[in-house]
Every structure is written in structure tokens, then in C-alpha cells.
């Protein structure tokens, strides 16, 4: 007698149309040799043949372990679900369910072997290879289970698998919609979405009856429709972070040799714990991948650098983006070198392609594709390749120059060049004893899976993007937000976008800044920590395009020849995208949105052409109104304007602009004190800051100052900004301003420099012809500098005339000049009024904050739920918590 009861395993047999074969299935199940108790549950799916009833009546009478359910026709999924529910209700002690189709058979050891493996592995299910009979066909489904393959390649598990009862207790069931021909595939994806994984077992099989025509064949005829169904139903699985997470754990894209350490890191997401391989393991994986590419993985890209370089790159927040650039360049030339530069004020990524035989210096990081290494070995071209370690490089190469502010801590210099580390690996591969036998496949069943090292290409196809941003879901319930800007200089629009990023980050988002169309970014201290990751993509992303017209305005259509795959690879899979004037991104938003991303469009200003036709980004965006969940504007005025073009108010968040920099309490106190004290009767100080161009009203400023001089008003004037110089120096605004004793200073971007100018001035003069909601007004107010601005755009939302600034009514140029000169003259005389205005400006600034401005938008974005599958600890049936330590690392298995 046994001391403990044997485990109960249920065999579920859905039955429709196989009246003549079901007995074979049942007999094979009952002939199982196992230590388990067995219960066979036959779920008759409304089979119209009475033969079924007769057979099962007699069979169930003779075999008490056979349970029969007669049900209405519900399709294969419905019949299986009926069996599952029966087992959960009537056989609650069952530990696992094995699905046996009524026309198939199990071998005597199938149930026992699979159940033992299930218990030992703690997987959600254990599956076998496929061997069919009647029509002979065989398939080898890999030596390890891959969720990535299961999602984007094909169904790799037959329902004839041993499935833990935990899977069903977690609520996973078969899809009953018969329009979907892949109900079995859909079932496994549901299990994956709940955090379960499979485990292959090659030690047993079942007998799969294959006829000339089958349901599988039928389903494959309508494969694209079924695939669409799967993608819609399992959005969380088909998102970039999920798939990249699977790739990271199952088929890592990059192998990185740390110079001098003799180990390779293997990873896709550089921010997650990497797997590690010794050189020995790498050699085995490389050659294993040659002979059995479906069983053994070797990363498709190999890099080499020192640990110090890697740390530096990790802290730069540029690493995922750098990897994207490296992938692209490695597909255009043989070898890519990375050169790092320490530049305090700027981040930039630039590259150049060099021909064969080019001279170049040592690299900080070297990057090649594994395909190149294979070719080098096959073509016996090691000498040719070895030149990468010398001054003259014979392979074609690219040099990626990356600049960013290095951390203050001193970096150790590596004494081993990355090129040499890479050469060492290639030499080790070339001379390995595995090389002569590597081409023989020892696994005898035919390969049915894609090559593991080619999965990154399948991933590109799945997402429609290339390269695919190597970032996965990170631990914890972080949502991700991407803020897109067309350039990253010192403009107000960029600063507002950075402010949005900062607010999102403070509210729990992992933030990404994408500079699309430019390879550089100025460092602005105020917002430098607003983003967790920074990305540049310069080529193939035009700032403007006119492949279509909407209301006579330009917009970019799908037919435009820009780098769609690059953009899709970078931008897919975020929980939120805030598009801040990136025209090229509008056509992609509908696709991202349907894949689960919430989309927002940030607009700042309606521009004017030389003929005063309203133009600019708002129109290019309104053309894609339906593709955005939300619009952000810098003013109520622009909000109304968008509404007039059919954007519902409920979708628009008017976000009043704040200052582009903040000042500390000490400076604020000093400024307040100084403004209160006033400067007596000293000449009034007038400040102009901005481009010296027509939009900003530089001509109006000039004329105003001339009038003031004519009226003998004492003032000092300073113009800070640059201009585009023409050939005729006499037409230069700089020259003309200097001619009337205006101090002209070059543009400043650092917060302290801007603050110094504003603190110096009594009045900030802004005679612009058009504006959005200039940040400069808020910046002037927070330093008690009185803004005097033409009431254009949303300026009147920032200035209350006579309270915290002066508004000059928009009129003809001459009228504006007269009015500005008159007002300045009054304030020059009436210093008390000027003081009240300065105090008013300070009071307004004290009440203004970006957090308050963004509050409604943040509340909206708080409702965004991250779309991610359940994480489940490998060693338990329970979903994992937030703790990223330990368990995450456990998932990173060896790639060999």
C-alpha cells in the first residue's frame, strides 16, 4: 500500500467527428504505464453520430476512470473548456491535464514521462516534438522553449501537452470563437500572458494522426486573419517591450566581450541583468548555432569594450540608442568603431562610413555582426579581418562619434584594445576543434523553428521596424512615455517638451526623449534629468514634408520616402507618446495607438508665411486628429483654435507655459529686495532677448529706441541674440543697433546667464509679430523684469496688462512703435508704477509652476495602464511581485 495517494492526472479528450477513432485514443490512454492515477474525460462536442453515444456508454461502463460529458456543439475550444471545467469541478485534486485529440494516441509512457517532467521543471506545460502517422511528418521544436518564437513565429506546442492545473486555475481557457483557426496557439499565448512558460520534452512523444486534409491546414489557409486575431487579443504580448524582454532572456541580440575579463555579456536590453558566457561557452554556442541553429543560440551581433566604457555608456543614458545605431551601421559596413568624447555642454551622435584601407585610431568599442565573423572563418580571411587592430583597416568600417558630458569620476583606461579582444574571439572560433564537426546536424527530426540568431529579424518584421529599440519592460509598474522633438537646442518648444517629460517622470513614468531629425542636443541643466533615456535619429526624418495637403496645408503621408522602419523600430511599444512638433511621426500614431499606445500631440504656435497665411505644425497635426488621444496646447487661445478645426475640447489640455529655468530662494529674495528698492532715477534698462529677426519684431525695437532717443528719454538698451547674416553688413541688425548705442550681446542659453540679463533689466521688450506663449515672459516675471509685449498669440494669457506687465495692442508697425515708446517714456518717469509692475510680475511668477500647468494632463495620463503580461516566478505558480532582484536574473539562461 502507498503511504500517500498517487497524483491524479486528467486526460481530456474533445470529441467531434472521430466516432470511429476515439476508441483507439481511449485504449491508448488506458494503456498508459504510470504511477499516477488517471481520469479520462471525454467531452463530446455535439457530435451528431449516435455511434459516439453507443461507444462511450459501453466504454464508460467498463472503465470507471472514463468520464463522459455530452454537450452542445461549441467547437474545439468550447469542448476543451467543458472538459477543463468538469475537471476543476469534479476532480479538484487533479494536478495536470493532458489533452488527447480523439483521433490521436498516446504511447504507454507518454503521460508518465510528461508528468514527471512537469513536476521537475515547474513549467506551466510540457510539450513534445511532433511525429505523425498515416501521413508521415515530423517536427523538432527546439531544445528550449522560447516565448518569442511562440509569439512571432508559429505555434510550437500541440495541445497534446501536459499542462499544470495552475494554468487553468489562473483562468486560462481556450478561445471559443470558431472564426479563429488557431485556438490552440491562442491558448498558449493566453498562458504566456499569464506568466507561464513551456518546457520541451524529447524523451517521449504521442501519436499524431495526420490525414491529407486537416484542421491545421484549413487554419493555415486563412493564416493572416488568424494572426491578426491573435495580435488583437494579446496586445500585451505583441508589444515591443514584451517581445524584447523575451528576446533578452531567450535569444539575446548582443554579445559583449569585456576586454581583459574573458567573459561575454549576452543581452538585448542593456539596462537589464545580462547573461554571461565564458569564451568556451561562446565557442560552443557559435558552432552549435552553425549546425543546429534552431537549438543553439549565438547572438547576431558581437561587441567588445572595457567595463569602464560600458559603465560610462550606461550612465550616458544613450546606450540603447547607440546600440540601434551600431546595428544599422553594422549592416552597412563590416566593422563599426565607437569613439567617445567628453563634451560638457552637448550630447551628440554622429557617424561616418570609411572605405576599405582607411586609417583610423583606436576605438572605445568595436561592433560587428556575427554573419561577418562566419564569413571571415568560412573564407579563411582572418588576416584581412585582423587589420582592424592595426592603423590601416581593410574591412569597410564606420566610426560612430558619441559626445556627452562624462561623469566627474575619473575613468580607468583599459590596457587592452577592444579590437584585439574581438580578434581573440574570432581566432578561438577559427581554431576550435568543434569547427570540423559543426556542420553535422545530430538532431534527426527536421528543423521547424527559425534560427534563434535570426529572431531579431523576425522581431523587426513583427513590429515593422528596424532596428528594434532594445528596451524591455522593467521591474515594477512603470509606464513608459516617449517625448518626441525635432531638435534639441534652446528653443521654447523644446523646453516645454522637456518640462512635460519632467512632470511625467515625477509621476512615475519612465521617460524617453527622442530627438528625431537631429543628432545633437544642448545640455540644459534645468531639464537634464527629465529623461531616463535619450535617443537621436537623424537620417531619414525630415523636419517638414509635403507629400499631402490638408486644407491647403502640408502634411506627410505614408507614401513619403522617409525612414518609416527606423521610426517604428524606435517608437513602438511605449505606453504614451507625446509628439512635440515631429511632423514625420504623425502618420505612425494610428498604428501605435491601435497597438495600445496612448498618443498625445503637443502644439505651441500657429506660424505665418510671408503672405501672412496661417501655417505650421498645428495643421500637420490636425490632419491626424483621430490618431491622437490628447492634444496639449500652450494656451487657451490655441485650444479654441484647434476646437474650431474639429478637435473636441475634451481632448485638449491647455498647459500654461512656465519659466524655462527656475531660480533658487536666495536669488529670488535678492531680486525681490532689489526691485523693491528700485534704482532711483538712473536710466531705464531695456532688454531684448531673442533672434534678431522680423518675427520677433527687431525692426520695431529699433524704431522704438530711435524714438526714445529723439524724445530724449534716458535709457540703456541691451539686445541679446543672434541673426542670420546677409552679404550686406549694413543691413545687419547688430550693426544698426550698435549704431544707436545698443549693447549687442551674443545669445545665451545657460539659466544663470539668462537670469543675469533679466535681473539687470527693468523692462523686457518683446515687439513680436507672432508668438505662441513665450517662456521668456514667465522667466522675466520670476526675476521682476517687467515684460512689455505685443498682444499676439497667447501673450495676453501670460501678461495682465498694468498688473504684471504691459501689453501693446497688435496694430500697424508705426502704431506699435509709438505706443511702446510712449509707455517706456511714462515708466521712465514714473518709477513707482514700474516698481508696482515688477512686484506684480514677481507675484504672478510665484503662483506659476509647471506642475500646476500640467496637472490635468498628468491626471489624464495617470489613467494609462501599462500593457504588460504577468511576470511569474519560475519556481512557483504565483505571479511575481515587484522585486526585480534574483528572479529576473534566473530567467536569463545560458544561450548555448
Amino acid at each position, binding site marked *: 500500500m502507498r503511504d500517500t495517494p498517487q497524483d491524479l492526472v*486528467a486526460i481530456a479528450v474533445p470529441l467531434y467527428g472521430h466516432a470511429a477513432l476515439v*476508441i*483507439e485514443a*481511449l*485504449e491508448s490512454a*488506458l*494503456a498508459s*504505464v*504510470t504511477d*499516477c*492515477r*488517471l*481520469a479520462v474525460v471525454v467531452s463530446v462536442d*455535439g457530435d*451528431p453520430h*449516435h455511434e*459516439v*453515444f453507443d461507444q462511450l*456508454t*459501453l*466504454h*464508460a*461502463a*467498463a472503465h*470507471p*476512470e472514463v*468520464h*463522459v*460529458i*455530452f*454537450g*452542445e456543439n461549441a467547437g474545439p475550444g468550447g469542448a476543451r473548456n*467543458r472538459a477543463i471545467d*468538469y475537471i476543476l469541478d*469534479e*476532480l479538484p485534486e487533479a494536478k495536470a491535464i493532458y489533452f488527447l485529440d480523439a483521433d490521436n494516441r498516446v504511447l*504507454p*509512457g507518454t503521460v508518465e514521462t510528461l508528468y514527471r517532467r512537469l513536476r521537475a521543471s515547474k513549467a506551466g506545460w510540457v510539450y513534445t516534438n511532433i*511525429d505523425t*502517422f*498515416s501521413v*508521415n511528418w*515530423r517536427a523538432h521544436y527546439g531544445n528550449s522553449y522560447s516565448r518569442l518564437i511562440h509569439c512571432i513565429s508559429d505555434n510550437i506546442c500541440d495541445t497534446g501537452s501536459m499542462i499544470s492545473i495552475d494554468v487553468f486555475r489562473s483562468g486560462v481557457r481556450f478561445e471559443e470563437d470558431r472564426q479563429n483557426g488557431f485556438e490552440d496557439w491562442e491558448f498558449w499565448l493566453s498562458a504566456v500572458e499569464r506568466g507561464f512558460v513551456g518546457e520541451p520534452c*524529447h*524523451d*517521449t*512523444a504521442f501519436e499524431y494522426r495526420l490525414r491529407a486534409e486537416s484542421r491545421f491546414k484549413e487554419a493555415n489557409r486563412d493564416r493572416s486573419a488568424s494572426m491578426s486575431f491573435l495580435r488583437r487579443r494579446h496586445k500585451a504580448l505583441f508589444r515591443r517591450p514584451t517581445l524584447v524582454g523575451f528576446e533578452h532572456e531567450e535569444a539575446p541580440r548582443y554579445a559583449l566581450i569585456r576586454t581583459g575579463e574573458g567573459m561575454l555579456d549576452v543581452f538585448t536590453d542593456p539596462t537589464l541583468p545580462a547573461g554571461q558566457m565564458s569564451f568556451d561557452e561562446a565557442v*560552443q554556442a557559435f558552432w*552549435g548555432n552553425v*549546425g*543546429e541553429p534552431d537549438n*543553439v543560440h549565438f547572438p547576431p551581433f558581437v561587441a567588445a569594450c572595457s567595463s569602464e566604457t560600458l559603465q560610462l555608456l550606461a550612465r550616458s543614458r544613450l546606450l540603447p540608442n547607440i546600440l540601434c545605431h551600431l546595428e544599422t551601421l553594422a549592416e552597412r559596413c563590416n566593422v563599426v568603431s565607437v569613439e567617445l568624447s567628453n563634451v560638457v555642454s552637448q550630447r551628440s551622435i554622429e557617424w561616418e562610413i570609411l572605405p576599405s584601407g582607411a586609417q583610423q585610431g583606436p576605438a572605445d568599442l568595436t561592433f560587428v555582426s556575427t554573419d561577418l565573423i562566419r564569413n571571415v572563418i568560412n573564407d579563411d580571411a582572418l588576416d584581412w579581418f585582423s587589420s582592424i587592430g592595426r592603423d590601416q583597416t581593410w574591412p569597410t568600417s564606420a566610426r560612430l562619434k558619441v559626445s556627452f558630458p562624462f561623469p566627474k569620476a575619473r575613468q580607468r583606461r583599459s590596457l587592452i584594445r577592444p579590437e584585439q579582444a574581438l580578434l581573440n574571439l574570432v581566432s578561438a572560433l577559427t581554431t576550435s*576543434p*568543434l569547427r*570540423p*564537426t559543426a556542420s*553535422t546536424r*545530430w*538532431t*534527426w527530426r527536421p528543423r521547424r523553428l527559425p534560427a534563434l540568431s535570426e529572431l531579431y529579424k523576425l522581431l523587426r518584421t513583427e513590429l515593422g521596424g528596424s532596428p528594434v529599440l532594445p528596451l524591455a519592460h522593467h521591474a515594477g509598474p512603470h509606464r513608459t512615455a516617449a517625448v518626441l522633438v525635432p531638435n534639441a537646442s534652446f528653443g521654447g518648444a523644446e523646453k516645454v517638451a522637456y518640462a512635460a517629460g519632467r512632470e511625467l517622470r515625477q509621476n512615475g513614468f519612465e521617460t524617453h526623449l527622442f530627438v528625431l531629425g537631429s543628432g545633437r542636443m544642448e545640455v540644459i541643466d534645468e531639464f537634464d534629468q527629465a529623461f531616463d533615456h535619450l535617443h537621436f535619429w537623424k537620417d531619414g526624418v525630415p523636419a517638414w514634408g509635403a507629400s499631402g495637403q490638408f486644407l491647403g496645408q502640408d502634411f506627410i503621408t505614408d507614401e513619403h520616402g522617409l525612414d518609416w522602419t527606423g521610426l517604428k523600430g524606435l517608437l513602438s511599444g511605449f505606453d504614451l507618446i507625446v509628439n512635440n512638433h515631429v511632423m514625420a511621426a504623425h502618420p505612425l500614431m494610428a498604428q501605435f495607438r491601435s497597438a495600445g499606445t496612448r498618443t498625445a500631440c503637443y502644439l505651441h504656435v500657429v506660424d505665418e508665411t510671408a503672405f501672412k497665411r496661417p501655417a505650421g505644425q498645428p495643421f500637420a497635426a490636425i490632419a491626424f486628429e483621430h490618431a491622437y488621444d490628447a492634444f496639449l496646447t500652450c494656451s487657451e487661445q490655441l485650444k479654441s483654435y484647434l476646437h474650431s478645426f474639429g478637435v473636441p475640447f475634451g481632448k485638449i489640455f491647455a498647459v500654461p507655459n512656465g519659466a524655462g529655468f527656475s531660480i533658487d530662494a536666495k536669488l529670488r529674495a535678492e531680486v525681490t529686495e532689489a526691485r523693491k528698492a528700485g534704482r532711483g532715477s538712473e536710466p531705464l534698462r531695456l532688454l531684448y532677448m531673442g533672434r534678431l529677426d522680423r518675427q520677433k519684431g527687431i525692426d520695431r525695437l529699433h524704431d522704438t529706441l530711435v524714438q526714445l532717443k529723439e524724445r530724449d528719454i534716458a535709457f540703456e538698451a541691451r539686445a541679446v541674440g543672434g541673426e542670420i547674416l546677409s552679404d550686406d553688413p549694413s543691413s545687419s541688425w547688430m550693426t544698426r543697433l550698435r549704431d544707436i548705442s545698443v549693447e549687442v550681446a551674443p545669445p545665451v542659453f545657460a539659466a544663470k546667464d539668462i537670469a543675469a540679463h533679466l535681473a539687470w533689466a527693468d523692462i523686457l521688450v518683446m515687439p513680436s509679430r507672432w508668438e505662441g506663449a513665450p517662456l521668456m515672459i514667465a522667466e522675466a516675471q520670476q526675476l521682476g523684469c517687467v515684460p512689455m509685449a505685443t498682444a499676439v498669440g497667447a501673450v495676453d494669457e501670460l501678461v495682465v496688462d498694468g498688473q504684471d506687465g504691459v501689453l501693446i495692442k497688435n496694430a500697424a508697425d508705426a502704431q506699435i512703435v509709438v505706443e511702446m515708446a510712449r509707455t517706456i517714456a511714462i515708466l521712465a518717469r514714473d518709477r513707482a508704477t514700474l516698481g508696482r509692475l515688477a512686484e506684480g510680475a514677481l507675484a504672478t511668477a510665484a503662483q506659476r509652476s509647471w506642475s500646476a500647468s500640467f496637472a490635468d494632463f498628468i491626471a489624464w495620463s495617470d489613467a494609462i495602464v501599462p500593457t504588460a503580461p504577468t511576470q511569474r516566478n519560475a519556481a512557483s505558480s504565483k505571479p511575481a511581485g515587484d522585486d526585480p532582484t534574483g528572479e529576473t536574473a534566473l530567467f536569463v539562461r545560458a544561450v548555448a
Partner: protein
Amino acid sequence: MVDAILNESLSATIHRLPRRNRYAVASIRDQDALEASPLSDLLVFVDPDFDAEELRGTFPLIGVAASDAGSNALRAALERLNKLGSLPDVPVVRLQEAALTKGAELVAQVLEGGLGRLSRHVANANTELATLRRERETLFENYRALENAFHARNWDTVSEVFGHGPFIDPKDQGLAALLCESGITQLFPISSYAVSGFALHFRELPKDKTGRLVATLDYVESSEGIAEWLIPYGSIAQGWNFFSLPKACDGSPRTLRLRISASGGRPPELSLGHVITNERYAAQALVPHADLDMRPLALRIFTGLPGARPMALPNVFAPSTVISGRKVEDYRLPVELLRAVANVSLTPVEPSFPTVRFLELEDAIVCHPLSEGITAGAVRRVVAPGTARISARAVIDHPDGKPGTVGLMLVPLSTNIRKEIAALADGRALPPTALFSGWMEITAAQPVDINFMLETPTSRTMDLVVLSKAATDSVDFAWLKIFNFRLVKYLERSPVREVANA
């Protein structure tokens, strides 16, 4: 279980063992009347508004009504059941109130008795049917293969379909000890279909040729055995040796698994091949061994006519045993069991030293013969049902040890062991339940291998008895040690399981 029910009186059965399956339906209107009847345990009561989407464990063979209203309601309910598709028309029997019990008993008897007999018969027929269908599939496939070969005039007797040559690494330690201690397993890298033989490479032969190489071939997926080869060391040639299968493998293509071990002295040195990347197909052993790291055996695999020796191979080994689909378990007797050896000797001599004991450091049983009688050590309950072969090695471990004789005996658990030993001592025939290997002479100069092959595998658990007796007048220093017990067990298919929810 059906038999058990039928062998008892009906009423007793019904009340003692509630049925899981129900075969009769009645309306809920008749529930009071029918619940007390002999039919109650076979009945499912249905509501007139019955609209279930499924029936669980119910096989409505007959409808029973005890009233007209019940009959009408039942018919309405049965109409609704038609949507399930599989159910036949169900006849409704109207039982009269006056003869309700009798009528119900009659229906119950028909259902229970008739159904029981029919189901038992059909169950047997189904088992046979499943076997026949499987055999027919194999026949069809083989017939077609023969026909194809005929049409293609494919008269090649044998052709090599896979080869992996030997590779001698100067650092190799050799596999001889491993073969004796645990054995080596090698998977074949091609489908089993049509495989008719394989060849192994031996790079070195021992001087002492006492012992046998044991090779078994089975299918991984089903664990079904194919054949076993017991090859005396002396038959093995240096280089490639061909092992012929009894017939070319047929049926579904599967993975072939070769297990090789040795019993006896130092075995011939098996050759390994070059390193490969797929570790699943590298040679495996229970005991880690440096030579096996990523290396398969040197191996050639052939298809063609069974028994036909490939050209240039020096010999061919036919299988010693055709296992024909049984699962084979080849295992060594655990030391923990040997430790419990009990002295059951039958001798008038009272020695001053223990003649039967377990030697901890050598994992051997000492069974010192005495000048009179039989020295015997019993190890209880170690021979499992299905055991077909027991082998062991014996040695007289003293240079001056006198010769003796040694043997093994298997006896059922309930047997008086000394009584059987007495029969042996007297030269009487043993009862059919006890099995004896016969006596083998042993001298200090030469160890012997005992190979006790049973005509039929044992059907029950048995005790193992090691025996020794004197061969000459003296037993001085006859320190007979028996060790390396190895059993081969055939597992039959009949499943032995508890029944779920029966």
C-alpha cells in the same frame, strides 16, 4: 467493478455503491415515486424546463415514467436534449403504480446486467481492435516500403546512413571502468526507421577476455526495447564491430538509444568520436567522466537487410535477446540492500569466523564455503517482478584460497529458504517456484562471472540467495566474494493504477 456489481444481489449493490454513471432518465414529477425504487441509483431526474447545455456522466438509454404527467414532462425534456446531437432517441417506459417496484427492478436488471456484460465484451474487443489497427498501419507502411524497394531495384544489402569516426585523444582516460561501473548511453542521430544495424569501434582489446559486453537498444519515446546483445569479450575485434538488429526498425520513426555496459573483467576499450556541439547526442553516463565531455561514441549506422554484414567489417553480432517492445530496465543492486544480507547457511560445521557478511569497503558479500554443507546468504525482497537475468562476479580473494563452487538461487518470499537449500544439498529437485543458477567452479586464479538467465521473467518479488560450497577437501583461505550484482528487468505493459473517483 462492473463484475463486482453483477456478482452481488442487485439491491445490495445499489445501496452499497452509488453509481457515477446514470443510464435512465425520469421527470422530476416522478421523483418521489421512483426515488424509493430499485432504479433510484441509475436515474437522473430532469425538470420539464430542463435546458442543460451538457450532460455529465449520464447515458440516457431509457426514460422511465411513473405517471402520465411525468411521462409528458419527460418527453418534453428529452426533446430539448436533442440539441446535444449525440444522443439517440430515448424510449420512455410507463411503469404502472401497482407494479412499480417490479417494473423498476426489471429495468434496473436489464441496464445493469445487460450493460455490464456488453461493456465487458466490447472493452475486450476494443483493446484487440486498437492493437489490430496499429499492426495494420505498420503492415501497410512496410508493404509500401518493400514495394518501393522492389520497384527501385534497391538490392543493396546494407548501406551506411550515418558515420562518426573515432578520435583518440592522448588525454583520454579510457571508458573501461565506466562500462563496468555504470555503463554508457548513446542516442542515435538519425530516425529509427529502417535501421538494421550499427557498428561500434573498439580501439583496444583486453588481455584477459573473461567478461561480456552488454548492449541494449530501445526507443527513447516509448521506452520499448528492441534487442539485447551479450558479447563475450573474446568475440570483439579491434576496430569496427557490427551489431545486427533482428529486423529493420519499422513503425513510427523514433529516437534509438543504445546502452552499453560490461560485466566481468576489464572490457574492450570503446572509441569515442570528435567533440560535437549538441550535448544531448554526446555519450552519457550516470557517473561523470572526463572523456565523455561533448563526445559521442564512434558510431556507424546502417540500413538494409537485417543480418547482412557491411563490407569491410570483420564480424557481426546477432542479438542475444529480442525484446519485442518490452521496456527493459538494467540496474545494479544498491549497496544498501546488500548490507542486509542474512546468514541462512545449512551446515553442521560451526566456524569460528563469520562466513557470510557484507564488506563495506568492497561492496561485496563474503560467502566462505565450509567443508560440509552449503554456505548461504539471503538478501530479502530484492528481485522485482519481471526480472529476466541476474549477473554477478565472484572471486576467491586470497592467493592460497582453495577452490569452491558458487551459485545463485531465487526463492519466493513465503518460502522457507533453508528447506530449499536442503533440497539442493541433497540433490533433490527444487520446487518450480525456486530458481537455481547451477554451481560454477571457482579458483583463486580466476574470477568467474555468473550469468543467471531465467527462462521466463519472474512474476513476483523474490529473495536472492548467494550460495557456496567446497569443491575439494579443503576450504582454507577460500574467501569467496560475490559482487557487482546486476539485474535486468522486463516491464510488461499492463498498467497497475488506482482508479480516480471510482
